[in-house]
């Protein structure tokens, strides 16, 4: 099998990476309009939101894509857009990562949604320039020339020139500002299940993830943090370098924080290896760490009681308010009140955090810095590197490597800072690795949350008022120095803007000050809030004696929410696939349904489950089938959309069943996968994905598969067992063996 992975090892040499191919490079930024064609020798710095297309004299077609590839198919979806308009065969297209200076952030499921128009327009512009170059060469009008599969055809005499032959001349022509775009009905690539170009390397072992980087002469380093959250390295402290290592480097908490909270153990001895360093680390005394004074309070029981008490006091920030909630509740025939709780969750990416850095020269004063990192945020890495090294951004080059999962964790900069610090200290390149135990214990976790939903019902069981108070640590507040002055929208997303007709509603947020670092976990607030909201809707249905699908239909049909009609279509599509109204549920099973919007994409899921009883008590459940329907406007690559739905469902399912990280005296309960159980193939449901192409503006699919699965299984579980699970996970304390 050929090595056609995106990242060939040669990418590790920057001259190779940027070496010209004698063709041309089109850079097109929309809407700013700083479009230009240039000889393919260099990339301009600081051009963001730019599509780059490189056409080589050797007929190679390369689309340069930013952000980071973590399995979501960003390298495929955007390149498909450029290839569509370029009129080239998809199989001919290669994809390369954009240098960080021109890159962007992979977050918010926005990679393809927000940038596809730019890539379409860039492809069309490049095509028109190539056609113009052919017309000029032949001395005919452009209307007599047609782009066909990487060539331009002279319609008068059937002469043909290839893009490679035309590239050099095309590069000298003006860039059209309004190139003709192909009508969607004529698309030949977009909307087809196109093969991902990164998969060959991912099945033959040649794809390079961050952890696979090898740089000449590099040392290996592993990290150990203070064992108690918030702990620091003693100062002064004397750490002798143990036998089997070459150096110990003190690591600060952030680029600007002088307080050290970790060490790197480094080796450049012959035979150095990561395991050897992990063994050697055991020989470093535990007496080098300060334990924070509040360690005893860093405890999950304490956190939960704090959050529960915040439900009833504190100053809430209003996230959404409509109608007169007080009157609705005062005049209610019946009030339901439910409190849902969710734990801290680690990201648990399969690839641990790591970063490789080479400073030039090896010792100060430095003139350049190169970084190979699995990152969702190449541009942030550039800023971090500039801050840590003091070098201008132009002296820094970032090579974004494949990520073995990102899930929101590889957006952060802590591991980048540590690797740069280490390389600067030891006078040689270094690959710095977090052992799995560090990756689990020093994550930036999905926030724990306590959310209380109150529902006012009138005499006939109709909802007249909806109140949702959400208490959780604020991700955004932890990342700035000033206190919150309004609700944290990440915390309440999925609790607000519901497509249901609630005559009155009040959604508010109380910040839970917690010293545990929190971060962006696949679908962020949506996965938390969808569990509470969609469980509560189900509880209302059962309380009112109405079928859960029927109640949702009623609430959506009566809603004026702009997404209501699309939500109803998605809900109905999932219900139809599941046979909700047409196929009897097999004995011993039950179905549960949930629907949620995230990042503009609407997903409904129906889970069909059975439970395992141990001594009459449910100890596990099996999800046999999930019928999933998704409306992301227009699916660029149905193959990727289906994969992302499957991925989101598995991720959310494992978290709902078993996902939990607890704190005891500042120490995390999860140190490895044996204490963080994941769904395996033998436990995997058969997932059927129905794509509802509503034609609405495109929206992302990397995250929206996650939110509906937890409430869908909780709702099925209630029907089957009569037990309403309001506290996740279903089965705390789960373990997993090999």
């Amino acid at each position: 099998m050929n090595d056609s992975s995106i990242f060939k090892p040669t990418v590790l040499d920057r001259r190779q990476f940027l070496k010209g191919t004698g063709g041309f490079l089109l850079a097109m930024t929309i809407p700013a309009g700083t479009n230009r064609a240039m000889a393919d020798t260099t990339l301009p710095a600081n051009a963001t939101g730019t599509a780059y297309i490189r056409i080589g004299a050797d007929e190679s077609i390369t689309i340069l894509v930013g952000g980071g590839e973590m399995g979501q198919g960003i390298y495929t979806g955007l390149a498909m857009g450029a290839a569509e308009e370029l009129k080239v065969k998809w199989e001919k297209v290669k994809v390369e990562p954009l240098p960080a200076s021109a890159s962007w952030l992979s977050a918010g499921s926005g990679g393809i949604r927000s940038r596809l128009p730019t890539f379409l327009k860039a492809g069309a512009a490049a095509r028109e320039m190539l056609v113009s170059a052919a017309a000029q060469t032949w001395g005919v009008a452009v209307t007599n020339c047609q782009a066909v599969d990487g060539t331009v055809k002279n319609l008068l005499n059937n002469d043909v020139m290839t893009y490679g032959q035309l590239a050099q001349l095309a590069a000298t022509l003006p860039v059209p500002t309004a190139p003709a775009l192909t009508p969607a009905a004529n698309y030949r690539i977009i909307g087809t299940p196109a093969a991902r170009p990164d998969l060959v390397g991912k099945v033959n072992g040649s794809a390079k993830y961050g952890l696979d980087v090898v740089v000449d002469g590099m040392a290996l380093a592993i990290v150990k943090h203070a064992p108690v959250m918030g702990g620091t390295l003693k100062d002064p402290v004397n750490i002798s370098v143990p036998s089997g290592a070459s150096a110990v480097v003190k690591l600060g908490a952030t680029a600007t924080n002088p307080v050290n909270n970790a060490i790197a153990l480094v080796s450049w001895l012959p035979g150095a290896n990561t395991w050897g360093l992990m063994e050697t680390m055991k020989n470093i005394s535990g007496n080098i760490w300060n334990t924070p004074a509040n360690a005893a309070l860093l405890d999950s029981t304490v956190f939960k009681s704090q959050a529960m008490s915040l439900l009833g006091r504190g100053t809430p920030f209003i996230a959404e308010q409509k109608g007169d909630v007080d009157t609705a509740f005062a005049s209610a025939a019946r009030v339901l009140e439910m409190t849902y709780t969710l734990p801290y969750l680690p990201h648990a990416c399969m690839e641990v955090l790591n970063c490789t850095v080479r400073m030039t020269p090896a010792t100060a004063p430095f003139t350049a810095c190169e970084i190979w990192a699995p990152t969702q945020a190449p541009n942030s890495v550039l800023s971090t590197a500039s801050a840590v090294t003091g070098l201008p951004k132009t002296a820094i080059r970032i090579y974004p490597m494949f990520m073995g999962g990102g899930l929101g964790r590889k957006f952060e900069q802590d591991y980048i800072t540590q690797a740069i610090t280490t390389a600067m200290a030891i006078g040689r390149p270094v690959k710095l690795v977090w052992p799995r135990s560090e990756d689990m214990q020093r994550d930036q976790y999905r926030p724990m949350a306590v959310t209380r939903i109150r529902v006012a019902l009138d005499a006939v069981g109709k909802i007249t008022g909806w109140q949702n108070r959400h208490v959780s640590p604020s991700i955004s507040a932890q990342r700035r120095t000033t206190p919150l002055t309004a609700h944290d929208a990440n915390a309440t997303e999925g609790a607000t803007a519901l497509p249901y007709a609630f005559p009155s509603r009040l959604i508010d947020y109380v910040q839970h000050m917690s010293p545990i670092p929190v971060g962006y976990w696949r679908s962020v607030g949506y996965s938390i809030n969808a569990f509470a909201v969609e469980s509560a809707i189900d509880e209302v249905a059962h309380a009112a004696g109405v079928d859960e699908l029927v109640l949702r239909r009623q609430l959506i049909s009566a809603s004026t929410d702009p997404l209501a009609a699309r939500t109803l279509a998605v809900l109905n599509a999932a219900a139809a696939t599941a046979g909700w109204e047409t196929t009897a549920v097999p004995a011993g099973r039950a179905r549960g349904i949930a629907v949620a919007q995230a990042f503009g994409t609407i997903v409904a899921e129906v889970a069909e489950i059975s439970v395992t009883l141990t001594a009459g008590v449910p100890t596990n459940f099996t999800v046999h089938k999930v019928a999933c329907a998704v409306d992301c406007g227009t699916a660029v690559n149905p193959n990727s959309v289906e994969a992302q739905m499957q991925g989101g469902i598995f991720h959310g399912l494992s978290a709902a069943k078993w996902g939990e990280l607890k704190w005891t005296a500042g120490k995390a309960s999860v140190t490895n996968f044996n204490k963080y159980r994941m769904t395996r193939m033998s436990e995997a449901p058969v997932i059927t994905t129905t794509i509802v192409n509503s034609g609405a503006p495109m929206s992302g699919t990397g995250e929206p598969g996650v939110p509906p699965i937890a409430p869908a299984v909780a709702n099925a579980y209630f029907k089957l067992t009569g037990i309403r699970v309001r506290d996740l996970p279903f089965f705390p304390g789960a373990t997993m063996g090999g």
Partner: protein
Amino acid sequence: MITLNVNGQSYQVDVPSNTPLLWVLRDILHLTGTKYGCGISVCWACTVLINGKEDKSCDVTVGSAAGKAITTVEGLSTMSPDPNNPLNRLQKAWIDHQAPQCGYCQSGMLMRAAALLIEYQGQDNPVPSDGAISGAMQNICVCGTYQRVKAAIKSAATGN
């Protein structure tokens, strides 16, 4: 010095004999297709073949692997000279089904699947059942590629 036979090539390595094979492959031989996931024999990301049987390379010492035929994902395509051997259909089936997402656990998946197909070679029915596939494939995939991986294994086994 320990002599290792990896993908038909001989390597001399100078490390303590209790060093896990995983780290010798990755950090010393730079055969980085074999992945580190947990290091405690739970996730199966580091699966390799040793004398044609699956094993977790984080849990095999380099001393005990000495002299045995070690196959990593880099050597999978050259294990059998017979183009009709199902092993030679595995990687193509993986791509046909567009199985990988982030891809990180897939080399371990492929090697576990290879061991399964080897086990079924020469049996009356050389195609493992759904249950046999699910039972064998203990690999953790956080991306949730199981459905496509299972389909790919069946394709490779049947040639369809």
